[in-house]
């Protein structure tokens, strides 16, 4: 299920529309993940406040979306483009890759709530494929 030229064009065009709100999107997605999938809280036991809109959630949402923005710019070769991020997740963070799917789903939900007119089925499929490819590249160095 690799990204076609049309997928890449769709992702780039949609990203341009949403990039201005990236920080908001990231922290909303993270907050949703922690609420809807409580098992993900296990990775953040070092945070004092896990509620929506809290400082650590907002800050980390931005970090995550900066990563997604980077991936959009490297969409033609995600595997090599995200190599160091993959090493970080594999060797230091050791996040179970099943969680990438969970966060991706939460990101899509946020896009639906914030951009209902633009998040058409065609955009949805390309974004879903992109996030899946991103997740795969992120898991590259795990084993």
């Amino acid at each position, binding site marked *: 299920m690799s990204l076609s030229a049309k997928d890449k064009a769709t992702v780039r065009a949609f990203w341009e529309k949403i990039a201005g709100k990236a920080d908001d999107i990231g922290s909303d997605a993270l*907050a*949703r993940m*922690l*609420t*809807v999938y409580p098992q993900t809280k296990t990775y953040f036991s070092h945070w004092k406040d896990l509620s*929506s809109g809290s400082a650590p959630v907002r800050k980390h949402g931005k970090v995550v979306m900066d990563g997604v923005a980077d991936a959009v710019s490297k969409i033609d070769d995600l595997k090599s483009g995200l190599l160091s991020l993959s090493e970080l997740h594999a060797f230091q963070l050791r996040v179970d890759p099943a969680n990438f799917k969970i966060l991706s*789903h939460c990101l*899509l*939900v946020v896009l*639906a*709530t*914030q951009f*209902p007119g633009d*998040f*058409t*089925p*065609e955009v*949805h*499929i390309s974004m*879903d494929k992109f996030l899946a490819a991103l997740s795969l590249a992120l898991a590259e160095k795990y084993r």
Partner: protein
Amino acid sequence: MVEWTEFERSTIADIFSKLNYDVAGSNALARCLVVYPWTQRYFGKFGNLYNAAAIMGNPMVAAHGTVVLHGLDKAVKNMDDIKATYAELSVLHSEKLHVDPDNFKLLADCLTIVVASQMGSAFTPQVQAALQKFLAVVVSSLGRQYH
């Protein structure tokens, strides 16, 4: 027995009372057929499903979307025993329709996206959690009678 909080019960009732079953049903089913094209395998008799525009405009898809939402309505009205409520529907999907139960989750995710688009900021993380819990119970109940 699934335990529902007051918040979950009222949230589910509220979401479904505000949904136009025709619109939400057809949008969710069409979106599922576009985003997860392999699900089209169950709709060989539905005519033109060649591209997203054709799927979104297909009247048979729209009609069937309504059927699905009315099926969900049964669960909304029987939240305390969704498993029993869906026993027959589960047998139907297994024995007659031969639907891979993994597909139920795909359609549930598309419905979540459709509800999210409609509700916007009112679709808070807590509301999302309630809807996803409800849909997970529905999905599980639909898969119960597969052997």
